[in-house]
């Protein structure tokens, strides 16, 4: 019987000729990522070693990445204390894939990992963050775990008791119409599958639209598969993956592993077909990500805060689209616009190209790279009854720090056009 991409990766990571759905396996881990919640991982890791008489040592410091992004710079002494504790642990254990709060090599973990070539095709990647699904964009099996699970990985180098997940195949064909983007594709998919439609499953992407899509777009799509409950999203690696890794991520050509491709007779739990040429801009309405509507049904809703950024849509192409729409225009009075590039590398490049100046001249506030307002911790909080329109990934009640506010999710083009009018606006209609 043929295997899907993730089945093949798991077979290889467990040294078996094959695995099948439901098998319980313990794959070795190629990369284990944490952010500030590394502080909790450290607690649990030390507890594992307690009373054993063994020195607490991680299994392989070269395979651990820690990226500060959730609260940067620290918003409280408590966070600063957590970050300090992690810094000390990183130094003691010899962890080198560490990205502190810095303007030259900082950013959101899900941008840093691809950008620095830490994730490669065929790898098993785990992260203490649900959006670890992002890295499937590079053709690896990448999924989110909790802090205690990570402590176990740091100890043993493998993930315990993983049930081989079934796979949903999504085939996307056709050209995106103007102002329709990978974000609209994934929102549409989540709306179709529902918030739990892919629970305990992997979503494997195929079709000519995906083949033509840049790695940046694939990261958007894989990032949000978790909003349909998926364990992971994955785009089988191809020429674009190779291009991205060698040209943008600094990986030597000889170090890029061969792509893992599905067998022709691989078995899928479900097949979903999407015609990209028929898509219109999509909006996820409050308070669940699967409450997705075509933009026509929500245009005109007044917006207090526009947010462009996050691990979903804070990349260079996203900022380019926003700057293109806002050039020579102004953010509407009464509407705030916040932009936070996903990494400092993106920030610097967007600055060199003049796009950040364009956005600021239009009235946007450009914030430092990090998770920023997305999860309502310390920047860009909302007032009671405020409405936010964001290119981020979640709109759960309270997500942006206030359960009495509403969050709508959209693409960068919709966010930028709506900033001009102060209302949810269809960028295809021009003029605004």
């Amino acid at each position, binding site marked *: 019987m043929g295997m899907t991409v993730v089945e093949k990766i798991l077979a290889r990571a467990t040294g078996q000729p094959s695995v099948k759905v439901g098998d319980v396996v313990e794959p070795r881990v190629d990369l284990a990522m944490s952010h500030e919640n590394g502080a909790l991982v450290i607690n649990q890791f030390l507890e*594992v070693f307690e009373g*054993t008489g063994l020195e607490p040592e991680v299994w392989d410091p070269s395979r651990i990445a820690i990226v500060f992004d959730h609260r940067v710079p620290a918003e409280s002494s408590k966070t600063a204390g957590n970050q300090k504790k992690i810094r000390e642990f990183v130094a003691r254990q010899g962890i080198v894939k560490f990205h502190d709060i810095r303007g030259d090599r900082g950013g959101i973990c899900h941008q840093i990992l691809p950008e620095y070539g830490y994730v490669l095709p065929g790898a098993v990647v785990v992260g203490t963050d649900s959006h670890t699904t992002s890295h499937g964009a590079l053709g690896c099996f990448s999924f*989110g775990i909790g802090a205690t699970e990570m402590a176990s990985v740091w100890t*043993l180098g493998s993930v315990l008791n993983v049930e081989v997940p079934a796979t949903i195949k999504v085939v996307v064909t056709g050209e995106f119409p103007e102002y329709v983007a990978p974000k609209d594709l994934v929102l549409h998919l989540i709306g179709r599958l529902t*918030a739990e439609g892919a629970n305990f499953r992997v979503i494997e992407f195929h079709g000519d639209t995906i083949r033509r899509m840049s790695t940046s777009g694939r990261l958007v799509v894989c990032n949000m598969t978790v909003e349909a409950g998926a364990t992971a999203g994955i785009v089988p690696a191809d020429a674009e993956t190779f291009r991205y890794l060698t040209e943008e991520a600094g990986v030597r050509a000889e170090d890029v592993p061969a792509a893992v491709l599905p067998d022709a007779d691989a078995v899928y739990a479900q097949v979903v077909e999407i015609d990209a040429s028929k898509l219109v801009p999509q909006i996820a309405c409050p308070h669940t990500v699967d409450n997705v509507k075509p933009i026509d049904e929500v245009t005109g809703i007044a917006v207090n805060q526009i947010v462009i950024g996050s691990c979903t849509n804070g990349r260079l192409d996203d900022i380019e689209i926003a700057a293109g729409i806002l050039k020579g225009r102004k953010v509407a009075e009464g509407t705030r616009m916040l932009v936070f590039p996903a990494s400092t590398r993106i920030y610097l490049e967007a600055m060199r190209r003049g796009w950040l100046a364009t956005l600021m001249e239009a009235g946007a506030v450009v914030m430092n790279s990090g998770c920023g307002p997305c999860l309502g911790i310390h920047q860009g909080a909302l007032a009671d009854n405020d409405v936010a329109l964001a290119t981020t990934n979640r709109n759960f009640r309270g997500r942006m720090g206030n359960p009495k506010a509403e969050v709508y999710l959209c693409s960068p083009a919709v966010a930028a056009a709506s900033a001009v009018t102060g209302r949810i606006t269809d960028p295809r209609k021009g003029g605004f």
Partner: protein
Amino acid sequence: MSMSRVVMKVGDDISTDIIYPGRFMATVLPTETPQFAFADNPEFTRKAKAGEIPSGGVIVAGKNFGCGSSREQAASSLKGYDFAVVARDFARIFLQNAINLGLNTVICPGIEAEEGDEIEIAGGMVHDRTSGRSFPVEPLPKARQAIIDAGGLVAYTRRLLLAKHGR
């Protein structure tokens, strides 16, 4: 399990942002996280402060309980109350975190119960002694049972670590 009372009834897709809002994520110790459980729910917060949320109560939930962020505080904050969560089903990461920490999670696809009902979980069934109705429990994913049997993932990992070192 002996008789317990339903202390809270919630619907589908209860995210970890609702169970444990992001702004409290700098708090990580399981001894400290329970104070922020359902922090944006004024009713729960009031009752918790007044000591009206008994330890060992039951939360009855719809589908996809614990969706969203992987934050483990969502599970540890509920574990602090020694709750059992009886849901139609759970999101993957939350379920795994709960099992790793020893929070009692019960998958019960047909569950219907009201706040205040007396619940007993026994013999693969959830019995609502108030309404007189019973609902079958779905076994947890088989891969999880070994961790529960070991008393949680920390203990389970420690055992494997010691075995690796021949102890």
